[in-house]
């Protein structure tokens, strides 16, 4: 078995939110004991529906929120410590691309200023000349003309703004990019352009990416490996084609069957599964999926399944997969 070069390793990550509703306090396990690894040079897709915890994972890694438990190792070093040098390291090595292209750029700053901001904060540029050159270079890399550096966000379209967001994450070159629903707010044709761009960048720069999205089709086309999340739990992890050809976890199967496809043979009929995802406030015992699962048994209701490794490197959290 080949030893992969792991850039980021999450071990037993936990994050709980407390919510008050109708006078009672609830604990919501946004991320419930998640362990996964990201290998250098790969795109790891994290897919799931609303409330599954995928965005929270991204935020925890980049330390926008603090994890309640577990570890995250970047190149072997624990990034949850308070060590200032490690924090600075983290900020330079791990960068985020945000979902909303209209909200993630400061409307008052020029594009050039926004793109160069990381470099400015960490004193990376040695001269104004160098700064301008590197900004121009990065803008060209994401497919924008360097003259855009003098423009302002409201003069750009959604797709162009998202490219700027990507450019901002590239300067200076990071080791890991966490893309949190980077194309969800874009039109389909623009989405395709940006996805192609990300694929190109991955090839040219050898970027490692964590691609978080609720859109299974998008994740499939860009990821090397895919992790499926449900209600804060990691339920399945496999390489892309394998996952779609042969999903093992019942939730993955449901997810794949639910994606509307441009396929003449597939038509919606009536009478589809009537179960709804349970409320996040409900405290479920055992497997989080058991109330919607066609294969659920007493074991599923009692005991939460752990992530097991199956043949071919696939991991599933199910008693019966």
């Amino acid at each position: 078995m080949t030893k992969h070069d792991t850039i980021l390793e999450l071990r037993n990550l936990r994050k709980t939110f407390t919510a008050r509703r109708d006078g009672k306090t609830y604990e919501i396990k946004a991320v419930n004991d998640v362990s996964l690894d990201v290998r250098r040079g790969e795109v790891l897709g994290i897919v799931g529906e609303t409330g599954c915890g995928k965005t929270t994972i991204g935020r925890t890694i980049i330390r926008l929120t603090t994890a309640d438990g577990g570890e995250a190792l970047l190149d072997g070093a624990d990034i949850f410590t308070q060590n200032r040098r490690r924090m600075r390291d983290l900020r330079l090595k791990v960068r985020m691309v945000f979902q909303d292209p209209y909200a993630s750029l400061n409307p008052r700053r020029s594009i050039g200023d926004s793109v160069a901001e990381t470099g400015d904060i960490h004193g990376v540029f040695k001269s104004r000349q160098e700064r301008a050159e590197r900004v121009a270079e990065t803008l060209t890399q994401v497919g924008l003309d360097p003259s855009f550096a003098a423009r302002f966000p409201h003069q750009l379209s959604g797709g162009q703004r998202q490219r700027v967001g990507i450019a901002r994450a590239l300067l200076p070159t990071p080791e890991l990019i966490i893309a949190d629903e980077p194309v969800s707010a874009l039109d389909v044709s623009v989405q395709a352009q940006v996805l192609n761009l990300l694929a190109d960048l991955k090839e040219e720069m050898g970027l490692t990416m964590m691609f978080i999205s609720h859109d299974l089709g998008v994740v499939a086309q860009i990821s090397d490996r895919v992790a499926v999340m449900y209600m804060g739990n990691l339920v399945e992890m496999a390489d892309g084609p394998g996952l779609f050809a042969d999903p093992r976890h019942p939730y993955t199967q449901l997810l794949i069957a639910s994606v509307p496809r441009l396929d003449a043979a597939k038509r919606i009929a009536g009478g589809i599964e009537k179960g709804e995802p349970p409320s996040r406030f409900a405290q479920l015992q055992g497997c989080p999926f058991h109330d919607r699962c066609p294969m659920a048994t007493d074991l599923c209701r009692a005991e939460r399944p752990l992530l097991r490794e199956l043949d071919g490197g696939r991991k599933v959290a199910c008693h019966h997969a």
Partner: protein
Amino acid sequence: MRLRRKPTNPINRRRWRNFKANRRGWWSLWIFLVLFALSMGAEFLANDNPLLVRFEGRFYLPVLVVYPETVFGGAFPTEADYRDPYVQSLIKADGWMLWPPIRFSYDTINQQLGRPAPSPPSAVNWLGTDDRGRDVAARLIYGFRISVIFGLVLTLASTVIGVAAGAIQGFYGGRIDILGQRFIEIWQGLPVLFLLIILSSFVQPNFWWLLGIMLLFSWMTLVDVVRAEFLRGRNLEYVRAARTLGAGDLTIMFRHVLPNAMIATITFMPFILNGSITTLTSLDFLGFGMPPGSPSLGELLAQGKANLQAPWIGISTFIVLGLLLSLLVFIGEAARDAFDPRHDPTQGGTP
């Protein structure tokens, strides 16, 4: 491509254009600036010392330098009184004097009044004299200057303190915010006017005392607006993005949130200035403001009220004060309209 200077945000350019388009505000700004500039040179407009004296082949600048009488051949080593006919004759014997338009300062008493003070406008005193025989026009010019300077300093200082207080409360929230808000509530409840009156019974307040006391209370005007802006701003997506880049709190506050807060602040400022000037005038009117003898619009108003038979005092002061405050209001309105978010693409939703 080399960036030569920071590109100007087209939004700011558009705001400037909007401001200019408001003719009333635009002209008001210019008129105000001209009047302010003139009043700054009050010494050159209304002075009992001439601007320039040529005597015995040499130049003297009495407007700037104090010369003893003996320089011009007089008997006493005290400061020359250029209005004294004796000194005038000494100088005219071998030279000439260049006077400012108004040959009185704010405290010069016109000894050669033909009628009892307050005297009506004449060729010598263009707006007449007040009840002490001092030239009204001169007092108006100097009073204008003091009012505006007081207002500007108070506004600037209040803005700095208010914005800082609002920013810290809004940005950090939590306990800091709660404590700050409670403190402001209590502090705001104190009656400023009475405190000032009480103070003036202990000390003779001067410019700086008044400024200090008023500053203690005027900084609170801006806090609400700035605090709200920071409370909102710290949750914006691009602020979060900046955090992921490693920006520290101060950087984020100054670079990302403050510029937004400044919009509301700038639109408030002309009105704060207006309020400061009015307050000073009111205090002077009541006699609790600047020390007696200082040129002051409020004091002239009080005189005008006390001397209704001399309408030139009251009317001219009223016109000056009304003009000043109106100009500021027009400027403020124009600024507010220029910043109106309805015309601002950054404040709108997604297209």
